[in-house]
């Protein structure tokens, strides 16, 4: 750029790391996703029938969601005003998240007290909507380039499904039950879909601010950990579980653990490390001295 030339859009104020949402927010997004995915996996695997896994997940999944809400409430400046968050359901995805999460918790607990498949279907819908709502919260954050992408809600839904199926397999093994081949195969499909969606996300053509914010997930160590720990390792373990029935239980547990860890890692990276406020950009600057 030489004197007299007009600059292209230039970052006058560089991107700055957002510091308001930290690990409590990650806990909310992670626990909400695990809870929603866990419940969905259990209910779908049981065909909406009452099964021991469904009962266990009807306890655990809402507790995960509530723990996430509690974590994020602790991050708020005035947590005692929390009920006010319910007010703007028409416009704010944060309000919607609380309503949907509350509905999910009530439906799942009601299913424990009054078991009925008519409660499981709307609870499953609420679980799906909860995962989507958490993604919408990020995608409406226009100030953060890495989050302001339209695919974010679907990424969160997929992440919930991956982490939920991982948690489900882990619980089944810990409960002494065999993980069905259908669940193992579905988990393989979800992992492949998740890997593809992750690569598509980091390749989103959303400008240089997005590219720089997501560099670690695309080309750096964060991306390698996500692909290895959250992708390749559980895929190998699931393949082993399918091929060697004798090793199915430990392999499924390992796969579940890795799927959980991988999704926690990805959400942590996304919220904390890729969470940069946009650079302030100006166009039309001339590289010239102002004459008197």
């Amino acid at each position: 750029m030489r004197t007299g030339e007009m600059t292209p859009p230039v970052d006058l104020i560089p991107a700055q790391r957002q510091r308001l949402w930290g690990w409590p927010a990650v806990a909310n997004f992670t626990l909400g996703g695990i809870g929603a995915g866990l419940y969905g996996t259990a209910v779908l695997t049981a065909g909406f029938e009452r099964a021991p896994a469904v009962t266990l997940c009807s306890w655990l999944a809402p507790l995960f969601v509530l723990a996430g809400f509690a974590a994020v409430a602790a991050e708020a400046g005035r947590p005692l005003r929390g009920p006010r968050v319910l007010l703007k359901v028409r416009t704010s995805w944060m309000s919607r998240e609380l309503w949907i999460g509350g509905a999910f918790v009530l439906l799942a607990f009601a299913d424990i007290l009054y078991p009925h498949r008519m409660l499981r279907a709307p609870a499953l819908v609420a679980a799906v909507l909860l995962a989507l709502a958490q993604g919408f919260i990020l995608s409406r954050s226009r100030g953060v380039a890495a989050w302001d992408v339209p695919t974010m809600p679907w990424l969160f839904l997929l992440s919930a499904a991956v982490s939920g199926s991982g948690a489900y397999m882990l619980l089944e093994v810990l409960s002494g039950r065999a993980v069905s081949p259908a669940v193992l195969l579905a988990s393989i499909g979800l992992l492949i879909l998740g890997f593809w969606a992750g690569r598509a996300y980091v390749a989103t053509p959303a400008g240089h601010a997005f590219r720089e914010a997501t560099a670690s997930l695309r080309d750096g160590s964060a991306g390698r950990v996500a692909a290895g720990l959250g992708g390749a390792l559980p895929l190998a373990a699931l393949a082993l579980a399918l091929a060697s029935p004798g090793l199915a239980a430990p392999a499924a547990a390992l796969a579940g653990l890795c799927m959980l860890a991988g999704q926690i890692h990805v959400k942590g990276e996304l919220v904390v490390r890729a969470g940069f406020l946009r650079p302030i950009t100006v166009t039309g600057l001339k590289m010239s001295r102002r004459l008197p």
Partner: protein
Amino acid sequence: MSRWGMIIDTRRCVGCQTCTIACKQEHGLPAGTAWRFVADCEVGEYPDVRRVFLPMQCMHCAEPPCVPVCPTGASRRREDGIVWVEYNACVGCGYCAMACPYHARHLVHEATGYFDAPTQSEAADARPERHGVMTKCTFCKERVDAGLAQGLTPGVDPVATPACSVACIANAIVFGDLDDSGSAVSKQLSEGEAQPLMPECGTQPNVFYVVD
């Protein structure tokens, strides 16, 4: 109905931060919080370099992304275009700060002073209702409203004009009614030199910049 707006002429700005201090003084802002500041920016590569002073604040957007995301309704936009926060309704979740593309929102976690104990003036300016909630530039709406009530014209009469504009030593900050074709901001805007910052964000800011 008026539509308040501002034009900031970066060609005139000398980076003195008088507007920053005037704002802090006017609103009694605690240490570490500045609703507006002047960024000292360097552009280009040696030997073709340039220094630019960029005053930053809330853009009081016509389509403010911070307002619809607010889960409590604390973030609001008045009919005259001023975007503000109702402190008593804010939960301090920080969502609006994530939605703002202009780094314009500031969460005041707790009262902080410049010394170990609050000074006399810091104690006098303490605003406990602002702790734990989101704060931002208000276009000095109290001055504007009080001025209008007295029959004064914001942008013309200093007591009815935002403190930053009044304090600016270079007359780089012009405030006024964008719907009044006779106002200084409207006249300057009609000359076509002033542009909003990052229009690609689609927020339709009511603060415009003249850059050269």
